[in-house]
């Protein structure tokens, strides 16, 4: 391989940091879900990098499973957002206090 594994890991760390910033700083529910997707992708990239580093395919199979779980998570998360929007006409997570009392 022409490119060292460490380069892919650095890229994965940067993408994870950007996704974490999105989850921590944004207040729109959709932006938070997008940040989670970005973090999952960074983890997937690190898994694929280690998989090709060690020359076996288990890591790539695991990335495939993570993709499937991410798809399920997004479907349920967006459904929850739609339900919340119907209740309060807003998906701003600062205003969500229906589970508070």
């Amino acid at each position: 391989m022409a490119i060292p594994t460490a380069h892919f890991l650095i890229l994965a760390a940067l993408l994870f940091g950007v996704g974490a910033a999105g989850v921590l700083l944004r207040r729109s529910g959709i932006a938070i879900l997008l940040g989670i997707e970005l973090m999952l992708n960074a983890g997937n990239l690190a898994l694929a990098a280690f998989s090709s580093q060690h020359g076996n395919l288990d890591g790539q199979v695991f990335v495939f499973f993570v993709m499937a779980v991410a798809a399920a998570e997004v479907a349920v998360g967006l459904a929850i957002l739609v339900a919340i929007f119907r209740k309060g006409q807003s998906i701003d997570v600062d205003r969500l206090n229906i589970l508070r009392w």
Partner: protein
Amino acid sequence: MVTAVFLVAAILAVVSAIVAVSHRDPVFNVLSLVVTFFCVAVNYALLGAHFLAAAQILVYAGAILVLFLFVIMLLGAPQTGGDEVKRPVQKSAGLALAAIVAVGGALLALTLKIAPAEAVPAANTQAIGRLLITTYGFAFELISVLLLAAMVGALVLVKRKH
């Protein structure tokens, strides 16, 4: 040549990821996340994971982000105007935490003594398919049940009460 492709894809991925989490328009967020995911697919191809590169584009750009766009259109106007409460302390603390995660991870990757990569078989899609239905057969079936459960759960959650 390969290094140039990697550098372009990596820089484009990080820049469009920053746009994706910082822009105010949700449609713009999703569209620039498409660019990020495409660059991640390029990285998979560079790693020799051709199946993952195709699955990345099909599943993420083709399914997940289209679902995001549907929901954004369904919810209508960009409801981002909820900035009546400013929280500077929390904002800078969150930014610092994310920066620590990114820089710490990058430094860790740099300091790890990683041996040179072993040779990867050129076309491994067939091998992945075989792994999925033999060694990981049970997990594969479980994933299909999980997807069915998620589909039913999403339908139940958005069903209108009569």
